[in-house]
């Protein structure tokens, strides 16, 4: 169980390495909320966009009298249309994520939480709205929302392998799934196709422990899943290595393909590597989908 306070501090550390970027919404019409993102067109917002001659139908109070006084026409002061993006996170908190092969490595769950909260911080700083489907936290903006996110992220799941939850996804928003994706891949496929039908784009981050990539075992071994629900005994673990790696590669390939088909992006991250690079990727992956 991670302390929400320390989790937030650490996440701030990771997020501190990035200047706030502005996520781009690729669809204007939907999920329009007033935010700080200039849309390069007139609309509802705070920043000045342009003066235009007043037309029939403009309210009298929208006329900029100071500008109009300098000319014979009345002018309306238009403001830039600003929108906010809402991002729905799903972070796998299942038992399999609580695995760390070495004492000096963080568990996958830890990495997933820090990563997703760091992303949340970046997004909220940029004025986006972030929700957490795995913890039932609705999409909100504002710094104080981070505390709720951190709180919800710290909760553990009892299942052995997690499966993505798409119930809270608003149409045409963004989604981020962070998991090891070792469980049922069909559930992931269902979730993704559901997200695709709602017009949700996003990113899949697969977090793996270095040992899961290397399979450095040998000899007679009984493998158990973290929750204990699955078990497999072998006499020569070393012989299984190639076949295990094949299956792992196959899983990654499937996920990649799924992501491609649904307009998502997929990346594998290892807990042995630095979190900042994957955060950067993740941030740009959300921001730059067209």
């Amino acid at each position, binding site marked *: 169980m991670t302390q929400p306070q320390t989790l937030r501090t650490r996440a701030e550390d990771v997020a501190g*390495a990035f200047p706030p970027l502005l996520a781009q919404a690729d669809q204007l019409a939907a999920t329009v909320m007033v935010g700080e993102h200039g849309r390069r067109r007139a609309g509802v917002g705070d920043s000045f966009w342009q003066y235009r001659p007043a037309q029939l139908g403009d309210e009298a109070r929208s006329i900029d009298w100071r500008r109009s006084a300098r000319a014979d026409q009345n002018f309306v002061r238009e403001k830039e249309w600003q929108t906010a993006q809402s991002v729905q996170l799903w972070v796998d908190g299942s038992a*399999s994520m609580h695995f760390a092969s070495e004492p000096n490595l963080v568990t996958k769950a830890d990495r997933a939480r820090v990563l997703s909260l760091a992303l949340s911080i970046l997004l909220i700083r940029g004025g986006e709205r972030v929700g957490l489907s795995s913890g039932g936290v609705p999409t909100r903006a504002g710094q104080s929302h981070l505390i709720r996110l951190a709180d919800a992220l710290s909760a553990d799941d009892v299942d052995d392998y997690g499966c993505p939850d798409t119930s809270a996804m608003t149409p045409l928003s963004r989604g981020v799934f962070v998991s090891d994706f*070792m469980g049922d891949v069909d559930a992931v496929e269902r979730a993704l196709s559901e997200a695709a039908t709602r017009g949700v784009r996003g990113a899949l981050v697969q977090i793996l422990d270095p040992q899961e990539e290397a399979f450095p075992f*040998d*000899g007679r*071994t009984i493998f158990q899943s973290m929750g204990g629900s*699955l078990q497999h005994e072998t006499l020569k673990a070393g012989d299984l290595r190639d076949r295990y790696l094949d299956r*792992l590669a196959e899983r990654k390939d499937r996920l990649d393909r799924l992501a491609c088909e649904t307009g998502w992006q997929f990346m594998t991250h290892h807990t042995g590597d630095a979190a900042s690079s994957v955060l950067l990727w993740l941030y740009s992956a959300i921001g730059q989908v067209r």
Partner: protein
Amino acid sequence: MFMLGPLGFLAPWLLLGLTVLPILWLLLRAVPPAPIRRQFPGVAFLLGLTDDDSQSDKTPWLLMLLRMLAVAAVIVGFAGPILNPKTERTGSGPLLILLDGSWADARDWSAKQDRMDELLGDAERADRTVAVVPLTDVPEGALPFQSPSEWRTRIANLAPNPWAPAADVADWANGLTGEFETYWMSDGVDRDSRDAVLSALETRGPVTVFESPRATLALRPAQFEDGEISVTAIRDVGGVTRDISITAHGLDPAGNERALASVAATFDADEQSVEVPFDLPPELRNRVTRFELDGVRTAGAVTLTDDALRRREVALIAGREDREGLELLSPLHYLEQALEPTADLIDGSLTDILLANPDVLVFADVATLTDGEQDEVLDWLDAGGLLLRFAGPRLAASDISRTTEDPLMPVRLRVGGRSVGGAMSWGEPKTLAPFTEDSPFLGLRVPADVTVTAQVMAQPDPNLSSRVIAELTDGTPLVTRKSVGEGQIILFHVTANAEWSSLPLSGLFVQMLERMAVSSRPSSPSAEELEGTTWAATGVLDAFGRLNDAANLAGITGARLAEQTPAADMPPGLYAGDDRAVAVNVTTVDTTLARPTWPARITVEGLAVASEVLLKGWLIAAALALLAIDVVASLAVSGRLFGPRATTAMVAIVASMAFAPDVRAQSDADAIVVTSEVVLGYVVTGDSEVDQISEAGLRGLSRTLFRRTSIEPADPIGVDLDADELAFFPFLYWPITGDQALPSRAAYSNLNRYLRSGGMILFDTRDADTARFGGGSPEGRRLQAIARPLDIPALEPIPSDHVLTRTFYLLQDFPGRYASRDVWVEAAPADAQLIEGMPFRNLNDGVTPVVIGGNDWARAWAVDQRNNFMFPVGRGNSGERQREIAYRFGVNLIMHVLTGNYKSDQVHVPDLLDRLGQ
């Protein structure tokens, strides 16, 4: 005791336990290794995979063998094995232990003592009486039979003698009476007396011989031939090649005994002697006191040298050194002819010669010396020099020693000298009178044809007669002598050439020079020469080849010395007579060594004392070691050794194997890599995080350079200041940490050489966010401590017209991750002036050797392998701008390092164009 070859067992029944090994084998083979339980999320992928075969559930046979060996070692170990269990020597009746007791015994004397001790122990158990007799020191009368315990206390003090048994030792053996058994400890050198002694002893009882099989080596006395010393090493048996080395020992100029020269040689397989030449400069040769065969500690392996090897250094100085004259008229010609074969001649000016401290100084017709020269010559005489003067026209014409006796003349001289038997004088040429009793020339035959036609005359004086050592038939002095301090002055009243007398033409001249110890003597003195003289030992050799003080040995006669056979009355050593020293060595020039041949009926045993070795401890230790290997091997077989949880076990194993520290020495291959491209270097601080950042920072800078400029650096390299050659790196980045260790002395000299030869170091204290330059941060203090011994010139903050501001980009700020303005470089010379119309001062040539700042450039430059920036700089666009400027500073810096003041020179371009009339 149960014996198995040389092995004995204390508890042989335990060996039956070995029969259970096959049963154990079968039992162990049946038990597979226990499985490990691992939690592993990836098990989801494993479900449904089956093993190829089920072989590994049985223990591998190698492991089984290991375990069996361990069990076998334990069983055999507890059976109490003993290597070489002792067997006792039996016998009865009196026992004579006969030693040769010669120098050849010294080689393995302690082994002989051990062997004797064991023999005495056996004799004690057998209740026999024993006599121990060395043949070099046979007792008078009956054999001293005593209890073995008595002898055991005495053999510790028994030492071999440095000479061989006397030739008449057989007489002593024949004179023995009674029945006794004999153990003869032979020294392994054949002698004529051996057979006679053996047969005499065999009449008294059985004889057993103990002899070491090791070869005996010795040195023959050194010989001097043709300006070269040769030493001959001899050995008793051929058959194998053997490398030896011979060392010449002597006194160094400070008077300390030391090895002067060492020469290696090889006995060929069938050679019993090898001649080793020593080609030494005279200075060194005259100091040699002995030659030693290295690694052999016997008197035979040492040969002392005496005067025979010495060549005297004679300095010849003539008053009239005109080489235009005829060679035969040269005052020195006959002296050179006489002395050349036997002495080393020195030429040169008097003051130079005296520095060389010659033995003899010859003045041929030299009249006066300056006061300074005279004092030096007198000092040299006091220290034992021999000044030999010859008269001549100049000496006769000068006023030297006329009224008062000159310090450098033995007598006063009368004006003019005299000439006899010439065209303008009367009388016959004079001949030499026979030499008187007290003359050093006594005994030399005076040839009748030696005549004197002219001479300088000695002034009659009360002490004249005591100074004359040779005179003419009419009683006028021909050679006079005076002692000065330790030395002496000898004056020949005639010339050194044949102008005034025919003496230099005669053999007598050479003999006289020889007698006066001007020239060296023939190698060894003849018996006639030694007749009637007495010699006292100044140092004697013991059997182990050590030169000891002679204490108060009685003097020996010359006749005895001439025999050159060392014995109790004349131990080998150095003997001194009146004016020379003679060495008596164990060997002579014709000594040969041979092994004794014993008759077949005689039992010959070696000296080796086979000691009991209890093998139990070794076997148990071996079993433990095997089990330890088994632990590791079992872990490996069951996958626990390299598994994820085995880290601590591995660490323990690796630590216990005492791995050598990771030595990062630059190999030639590295050097080629580093020099074939431009490589930026960073100083390895020991803090791995800082080092990684340095590397990433330089990587970022290198890539930037590659993209933007014609500098295309390879990946940066960490530099170990102690081990690596710095000259390969044009640029070093040196981040300072607060707890960095000071470089070693070698590193400092490396660094200073690097800075002087045009290298540049960028010191980065990385603290510009918290500290002003030089102000109290730990890194700043550390930098001061580190830089104190470095050869760093006066510094100043980068002036606005410094060449660094324009080597590639035009810059005025040098930010890194922090944007402090405190960046210091070598100060411009004080006389640098801003010339009217020039944008920049004409600043110092060359490259500033250091740039010091705290802006943490490496973090601003740092990129990871995918070219992502690793650290944020500033905020937003201004931060990116700052990073860009940081990169530009890096580019400018490397440009400055590589192109020097090139951009500074561009200042003159308008001038140059102007002069060219453009």
